[in-house]
């Protein structure tokens, strides 16, 4: 894989995607664009279809209608590994590493599978050092604390030299003080690798900090888009996201 294809970004065009499981429409006519090297946040309540969307874009699920383009290439319905080779890479909401393997072997695996070599890891070294993964280089991934496992999983995605990253709730399960790692991660991907990012996230502070542009999903439909401050102030977004009734608010605070 030549580096030129990777430094040169490509925009992600999602064009009126719909997805139905039988009669259940989980996704209805959603369109948006992530510019080359850009960053778009995706927010929405649980069950809004955010993970389904990542599954469709990455190729794991087939859309019922509509299409997804990365640059000029149609990517929906292609095998996940083909999309990865084309630079479209996803991360997982749960920790996703190869258990029983050391941090090093995990990263070597990611490089091997995506046709890279150790120079890719050298490039990621500052990030690996910052997350504390270098100190744990020879330790098994499954004995690391949750936060480190999660950062390792995310770094595996970077080790494939992506052009467009699909991040599925990268901050979920991280301690408050670990969340700055996600900031560093996203900035590194954008600035050092010139990589576009689609960031699905529940942490509103994080979204506000990082994303110049967000889209809001609710019940499988795109209900709002724009700058975070503006979008989050809208009445319909607040209702959809936080729930209308006080009762639910109480529940949320207890949990």
């Amino acid at each position, binding site marked *: 894989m030549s580096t030129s294809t990777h430094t040169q970004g490509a925009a992600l065009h999602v064009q009126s995607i719909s997805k139905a499981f039988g009669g259940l429409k989980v996704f209805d006519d959603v369109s948006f664009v992530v510019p080359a090297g850009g960053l778009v946040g995706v927010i929405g309540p649980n069950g809004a279809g955010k993970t389904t969307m990542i599954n469709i874009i*990455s190729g*794991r699920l087939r859309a019922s209608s509509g299409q997804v383009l990365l640059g000029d290439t149609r990517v929906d319905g292609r*095998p*996940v*590994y*083909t999309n*990865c*080779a084309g630079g479209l*890479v*996803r991360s*997982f909401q749960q920790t*996703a*590493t*190869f*258990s*029983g*393997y050391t941090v*090093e*072997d995990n990263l*070597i*695996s*990611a490089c*091997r*599978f*995506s*046709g890279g070599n*150790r120079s890719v*890891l*050298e490039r990621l*070294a*500052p*990030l*690996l*050092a*910052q997350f*504390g993964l*270098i100190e744990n*280089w*020879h330790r098994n991934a499954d004995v690391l604390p949750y936060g480190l496992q999660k950062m390792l*999983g995310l770094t*595996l*995605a970077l*080790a*494939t030299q992506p052009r467009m990253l699909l991040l599925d709730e990268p901050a979920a399960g991280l301690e408050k003080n670990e969340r700055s790692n996600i900031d560093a991660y996203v900035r590194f991907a954008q600035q050092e690798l010139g990589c576009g990012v689609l960031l699905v996230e529940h942490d509103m502070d994080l979204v506000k900090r990082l994303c110049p542009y967000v889209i809001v999903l609710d019940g499988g439909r795109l209900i709002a888009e724009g700058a975070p401050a503006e979008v989050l102030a809208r009445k319909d977004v607040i209702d959809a996201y936080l729930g209308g009734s006080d009762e639910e608010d109480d529940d949320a605070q207890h949990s």
Partner: protein
Amino acid sequence: MTSPSAARLPEERRQPLFSGVEWITLALVAMSFAIPLLVTNPQVLSQTNLILIGATAALGVFIMLRMDLMSFAVPCFMALGGYTVAILGIQLGITDVILLGIAAFLVPAICAIPLGALILRLKGVYFVLVTFVLTEIVQLLLFEGEPLTGGANGLVGMPAVTFFGVELFSNAQVVLTTCGLALVGFLVTAIFTRRFRYEFAAIEKNDVLAESLGLAGWKYKAIAFSVSAGVSGLAGFAIVNVLMTAHPSSFASMSSVNYITYTIVGGKGQILGPLVGAGLLVSATDYFALRGEFSPGLFGLLIIVVTLVAGGGLVGLATNLLRRRERKAGVAVKELSRVEARS
């Protein structure tokens, strides 16, 4: 925390293709060549044949277990290899052991490709069931395909194989042939499983993650199924060569239980496992003078005990013990150096 500009990765460790275990295993298999040269006891020679054939067949199971797929299809591919050799030998008069060996590897390996396309999308118990049925179907085809397979009589009168024109006919020479086939089988398996160890481990541990990192999992499964079939074919060749007959009973579907037991009891994590398993269990079967009909039941019991007590089999148990000792020794060395530093 290290400052980002100074961040450097730890030194890259050299990773040789073969680790110590592969070398030990290959050395043990190579040493078996000495047995027919030193020993004339027919009982020992026959045991050597059985152990090496069992170990080679167990490699077919071992390869598929790299990806957590339990294959009962080994006897099916052994039959393909064995009957190929018998047909080439009896009907076409080909006796060159190298040519026959290549055929015994390639025919099952090629047949495995379309079969793999059908069944490799299955996982877990479904894969187990379908591979078992596959072996049953091959049994049926062997019995019914009389013009080609000789039906219930099998193919009798396999001529002795030749090595560069030298006939390998005597008891000892037959064992030498078995040793050679086993060595090739172990060498192919060692190179193949070590060369793609990252790929296989990733498919075994987390295939969804592996695919999302760019690994086309089905390719590796297909290649592994094919190589597993080829190595099984070599074991089939060895059986036919020992018995001078290709008969359906040599490839009964229940024998797949034996090969799985060898692998799991010996240890499915290392290539040494199938060899140790076959060595111990073939000798044990003989020692207790058990007839075949009891062995599947006892082997089943043994699998349960081993998976409960030592998941990694005997080899896994041994390496764990060694590692623990090493760690203790390592701690002791550290303590010692600390004491020395103080004094």
